[in-house]
Structures are given as structure tokens and as C-alpha cells.
């Protein structure tokens, strides 16, 4: 008769005892329990019988020969190839989508018209500086040629009344600029070309910084990522359907 009084925990100990998986201390404790409890001993006998019965189960004869042919291996390898492309494509789709989202958010956060305006201003300033440097050199070279070069422009001296008016206008313009700075300091600070660029420089990695400042490259990358995500996603879907 089967023994129903043995709790599952002790059954687990019995199972491990049978397979000699208990440590010496646990084994000793269980052996003393077995001597005191005929139910436990009976359960162990049943367990031993069950294990022996299972171990004596014969193998089931295979219904056919499973030897592989070159054709079978070839066909399976082709199918497997499709199967291995599926995870690669789905991975590519996910990565491309994540990268697109990252680049797009970075563009929205750090990019925008302010940065592009700033880059234009800096480029214009650089061009101006180059022009200023080149002017005195050409003037100097003209003097060295023995005064044969172009004639120096003669400064036209304004009349005294006109000069006073111009100075007054300049003073007025300066004071109005100061007022604007005081009223709208945020606007002024944002409009500084260097600060927007500095923000991009400080917060972003080099490659992304380049992309943010180079609008054309950024747009190309975004389009490329969208294309990869869609193409890989469609490909993954195709192989997923084909695999089943």
C-alpha cells in the first residue's frame, strides 16, 4: 500500500537520500528518523521501487531511420539561415528605431534655429576677420611697390553739425540697447551665438555635436535610420512568417 502520511518535505529528503545527495549530517538524522518511523521506511521502500521501475523501462524503438542525407542537411541549413536572419533583422530594427528617437530628441533639445543661426553668425564673423586681415596687407604691398598701386582713399571730413548729430544718435542707440538688456536678459543671453554653441559642446558627444551643428548630415542620418528601421522591420516580419 502507498504511504500517504509522509509530508512532501520529508519525501524530498527521502528522494535525495535515495540518490545519496544528502550531506553526512542530514543523512544521519534521516537514518535515525527511519529507524523510529515505519511509515517513513515504507515510503522509502516505495520510492526505491518506483525508481527501479522507471529505470527498468526499456527504450522505445525508433519508428524509422533518422540518418541524415546531404539534401536534408542542405535544406535545413537554408531554412536555418532564414531563421538566424530573423533575430538579426529584428535587432537591427529595434536599434535603428532607438537611435532615430535618440538623435531626433537630441536635435529637438539641443538643435533648433538658435544653434543654426549661431553657426551662421560665427561663420560670418570669421569671414569678416579674414577680410579685415587681408586689407592692410594689400595696402602695405601697394606702398612697397613704390606708390604705383591704387591711390589711398581720402577721408571726407564731415562738417561739425553733422558730426554732433551722429554722435547723439549713437549715444541714443547705445542707451536703448542697454535698456533692452535689462528688460529681456534671457532673450539677450539666448541670442548670444557663443552660448548656444557652448551648450551643445558641453552636453553632447563629439559625433552628435558635429551632427547637431551640421544640419544636412543630421537630416541624412535621420532619414537613413528611418529607412533601416522600416526595412529591417519588414524583413523580420517576412522571415518570422516564413519560419512558421
Amino acid at each position: 500500500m502507498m504511504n500517504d502520511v509522509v509530508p512532501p518535505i520529508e519525501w524530498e529528503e527521502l528522494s535525495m537520500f535515495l540518490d545519496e545527495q544528502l550531506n553526512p549530517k542530514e543523512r544521519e538524522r534521516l537514518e535515525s528518523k527511519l529507524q523510529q518511523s515505519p511509515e517513513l521506511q515504507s515510503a522509502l521502500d516505495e520510492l526505491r521501487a518506483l525508481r527501479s521501475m522507471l529505470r527498468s523501462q526499456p527504450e522505445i524503438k525508433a519508428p524509422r531511420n533518422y540518418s541524415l542525407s546531404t539534401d536534408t542537411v542542405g535544406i535545413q541549413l537554408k531554412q536555418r539561415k532564414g531563421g538566424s536572419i530573423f533575430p538579426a533583422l529584428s535587432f537591427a530594427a529595434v536599434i535603428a528605431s532607438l537611435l532615430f528617437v535618440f538623435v531626433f530628441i537630441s536635435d529637438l533639445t539641443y538643435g533648433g534655429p538658435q544653434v543654426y543661426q549661431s553657426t551662421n553668425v560665427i561663420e560670418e564673423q570669421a569671414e569678416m576677420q579674414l577680410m579685415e586681415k587681408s586689407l592692410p596687407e594689400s595696402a602695405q604691398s601697394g606702398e612697397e611697390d613704390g606708390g604705383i598701386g591704387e591711390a589711398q582713399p581720402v577721408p571726407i571730413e564731415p562738417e561739425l553739425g553733422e558730426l554732433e548729430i551722429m554722435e547723439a544718435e549713437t549715444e541714443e542707440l547705445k542707451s536703448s540697447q542697454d535698456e533692452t538688456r535689462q528688460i529681456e536678459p534671457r532673450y539677450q543671453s539666448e541670442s548670444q551665438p557663443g552660448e548656444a554653441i557652448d551648450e551643445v559642446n558641453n552636453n553632447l558627444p563629439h559625433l552628435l555635436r558635429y551632427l547637431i551643428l551640421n544640419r544636412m548630415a543630421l537630416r541624412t542620418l535621420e532619414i537613413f535610420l528611418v529607412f533601416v528601421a522600416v526595412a529591417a522591420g519588414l524583413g523580420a516580419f517576412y522571415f518570422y512568417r516564413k519560419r512558421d
Partner: protein
Amino acid sequence: MDEKSLIMEAQKGDLDSFNRLVLAYQNMVYSQAYRMMGEPDSADDATQEAFISAFNKIRTYRGGSFKAWLLRIVTNACYDELRRRKRRPTVSLFPQNSQDDQNESEGWFPDPGEMPEEAAQRSELREAIESCLKKLPVEFREIILLVDIQGLDYKETSTVAGLPLGTVKSRLARARFRMRECLNQFGELFTSAHRFVGESG
């Protein structure tokens, strides 16, 4: 050629050597698949898939028990097959009843020199065991098959099943407990089975 040489040749891509290994192990692999899946069609698919997979992966075999390595592959193939069947359940064209079970047991190896009465009782016991194995949850069935039927030790089972040793121990104990409960329903059959076990050693 011994097993080791056959494996080495198969690792070089020799299909004939691999097929000799297939012949040596196909009953063992099919038995495992049949008992895991519980029906012959799925077992056939899983066995075929397991051998193809084994051929493709044989270069990754790094020594140790080849049987355990194959068992790991067939177990994985069975899980794949179970998942596939779950996604796309198939409906049998033939009605399933107790008669089918009798047909399925035609593949048993006969025990030579066995008395007809003994053979009948042994066959009955086999069917009771198979029936109880089918009722076990697949994760328990896997462990009891590996330890008690395939004869792997706990460590090998842990590697084959990809489970921690503690999980193997507890699942095995619970599987044995449930098997005992199930066989209890067959009453006298289990009691008389002690005699067969005692006789066969």
C-alpha cells in the same frame, strides 16, 4: 571505429560518421522525445530536428558524455516543438482513445524468454507508467526522465536542463511524489511491480 573517432570525423563534416552515431543513439533520442511529447508524430519531428541540430552543432561539442549532450539537444527540440504546437495546434484526423495507446506501444523492445502472463503484466505496468508520465507537468517530466529513465546524475541533469542543482533536486522529488500518487490509482499493479523489480534486480 569507436564513438570518439566517429565524433571527431563528424566534427570535420563527415556525414557518414555522424549517421553511424545516429544509428547508435536514435532509439534513446526517440524514447526521450516520445516521453516528453507524449505522442508519436511530435516525437518524430522533435527527433528529426534534434539530429539535424546535433549535426549543425557538433563542432561545439567539447567532450564529456555524448549521450548527455544529445539529450540536451533533444530536450530543447522538444520544447521548441511544444511551443510550435501551442502556437499552431494540430487536430488529429483519427479519434484518440485507449485503442490508440495500444498501437503506440508496438515499438517496445520485447523481453526474450518472458512468460506470456508476466509479459502482459509488465506491459500493463509500462502503460501505467507512460500514462502517469504524460500527466506530469512537462518541467517535472523532463527531470524524472533524465534522472530515473536515462540514468543521468544530478549534475549532468542540471547541465542538460540548464537548471540549478537545487531546482533539479526539488523538481525530481515532486515528480516522484506525483508519480507515486498517480500509480497509486492502479492499486495492485504497483504492489505486484515490486516483485518484478526485485526479480530483475
